[in-house]
């Protein structure tokens, strides 16, 4: 038998090594490229390189009418297209000075929260998968599948829904669909308990996330982190509660805060957010059922498309449909910024209109892009395996980072 030789490295004598991670690395959530400066396996510096998925959305917005741009917003944060649609439509409505109907507000609230559940479930599944937990991935995707069925039934598309319209939604809800949502909500909490049982006390999982990627409250604010990443550092801020929009003022929900600022804290905040979203969904669905006879869209034929069945019967509706589809509606000169709480953080649209049917300038404040700034400071002093957990806990969507 040969004796095992132990070689003692003196890392001080070695120079640091550069290691390229991505853009095709499976745990970078798409096409994120990080260049790591390593001392042994300890990260000394991490530099992000972005732009692999840049599709010039902001430039496209200047050449498309407002309705034509709605499908583009789906493809930013493609894990919660409902939220993006809503944020964009709310921005245009703000510039137009429109107020949507109460029923539409409930509908949008419900769909935004379902989208949040769907987005967080994907984060949960893939995040756990990256840390070696296969079962959670399969379970959470089973739940997401049901959510996608719900989106498909209301919008016609599973993934890129393009469902919201300026001044309303594409088509109204109907009883069978509401029953579908109710069925989903009724069975969801049992599944959620199983997710928590699988992870909360799991030694392997805890070893990977506790005390990894810490960021203090001051740093989180200074780096403009938003959403769950901000709340995990102990900042009590949620745009849904603090600057209410849609129907959130009427909803009863809590904002969960963690103080530690590590990956575990971000995990706990998101898991609790799913439960709060579930609560809001139940309330919104109930309120939606109560006002099922009220109009869904605003009564403004210059902005909202006429009902399809009227287009072939009424001359005015045909004209309005033609004008909206070909020319679009005009927005008076305005400069507005509308921010909402998307699953990733503060999603804001900054719209400058020159009075024409197209935006003069549309800026997107994308939460994933700005949250990713935190990666460079969070990962210092950790190992390569930790950076996988940190990226997962920040939950960036590259479609939104690069736009």
């Amino acid at each position, binding site marked *: 038998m040969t004796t095992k030789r132990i070689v003692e490295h003196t890392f001080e004598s070695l120079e640091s090594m550069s290691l390229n991670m991505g853009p095709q690395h499976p745990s970078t959530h798409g096409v994120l490229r990080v260049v790591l400066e390593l001392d042994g396996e300890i990260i000394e510096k991490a530099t992000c390189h*972005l*732009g692999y998925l*840049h599709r010039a959305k*902001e430039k496209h917005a*200047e*050449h498309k009418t407002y309705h034509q741009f709605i499908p583009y917003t789906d493809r930013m944060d493609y894990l919660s297209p409902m939220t993006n649609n809503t944020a964009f439509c709310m921005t245009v409505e703000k510039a137009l000075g429109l107020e949507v109907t109460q029923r539409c507000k409930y509908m949008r609230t419900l769909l935004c929260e379902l989208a949040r559940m769907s987005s967080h479930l994907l984060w949960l599944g893939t995040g756990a998968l990256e840390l070696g937990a296969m079962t959670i991935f399969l379970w959470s995707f089973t739940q997401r599948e049901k959510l996608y069925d719900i989106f498909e039934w209301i919008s016609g598309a599973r993934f890129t829904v393009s469902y919201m319209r300026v001044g309303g939604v594409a088509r109204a809800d109907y009883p069978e669909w509401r029953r579908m949502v109710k069925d989903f909500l009724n069975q969801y909490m049992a599944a959620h308990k199983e997710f928590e049982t699988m992870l909360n006390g799991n030694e392997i999982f805890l070893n990977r996330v506790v005390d990894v990627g810490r960021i203090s409250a001051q740093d989180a604010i200074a780096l403009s982190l938003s959403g769950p990443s901000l709340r995990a550092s102990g900042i009590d801020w949620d745009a849904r509660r603090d600057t209410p929009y849609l129907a959130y003022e009427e909803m009863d929900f809590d904002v969960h805060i963690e103080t530690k600022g590590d990956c575990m804290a971000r995990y706990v905040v998101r898991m609790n957010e799913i439960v709060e979203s579930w609560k809001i969904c139940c309330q919104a669905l109930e309120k939606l059922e109560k006002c099922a006879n009220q109009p869904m869209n605003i009564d403004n034929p210059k902005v909202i498309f006429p009902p399809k069945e009227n287009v072939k019967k009424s001359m005015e509706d045909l004209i309005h449909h033609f004008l909206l589809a070909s020319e679009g509606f005009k927005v008076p000169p305005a400069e507005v*910024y509308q*921010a909402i709480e998307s699953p990733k953080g503060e999603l804001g649209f900054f719209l400058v209109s*020159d009075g024409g049917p197209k935006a003069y300038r549309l*800026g997107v404040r994308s939460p994933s892009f700005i949250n990713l700034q935190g990666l460079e400071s969070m990962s210092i002093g950790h190992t390569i395996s930790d950076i996988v957990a940190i990226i997962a806990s920040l939950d960036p969507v590259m479609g939104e980072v690069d736009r």
Partner: protein
Amino acid sequence: MAVDLNKLQELLRNKMSEYYGDKVYSITIAHGELVMVVDRAIIVQACTTLRDDPDFQFDFLSYVTAIDWSAMNKQPRYEVIYQLLSLKKTHRMRVKAGVPDSDPAIDTVCDVWPGANWMERETFDMFGIIFRGHPDLRRILMPEDWEGHPLRKEFPLGGVKSFYFKRSTEPRAGEPKNLVPRVREQLSDI
């Protein structure tokens, strides 16, 4: 929590004109949003005041971007936008500073809010506005060797050059079929 914008506007008027005099051009409310236009020379001081003053406490920088006004013939050509949020007082405002075409530069606010780093890099990438004193002013979304700044109004939607791969008619020795990249000037603006 409704925020009294008129009161905030009054406070801003008093304090800002006291500190910076005529360098503050206007403080207006439109569409329920408070907008302050300042001279670019005082942008860092004004932002520091907005962050530190107990009446304002704009501790959170939401968004930095710019507008190119050239298609509307406004002067100065660019305007840099800072969208601010106070997490403690739950109010928002926007600070704007004009930047002329002859000298497209403004001081960085990275020292006030470190989170401005990537947002200013993106604005530089898209508009070519130089942020003086920025720690790492490189392109962020476009390739490093890209020419031009895409969100400027004169930049065509389809790009200046289009790249495509064409099969070479004459195969090189030893290479039966090879792909040679060619560059052609774009024929028309989309």
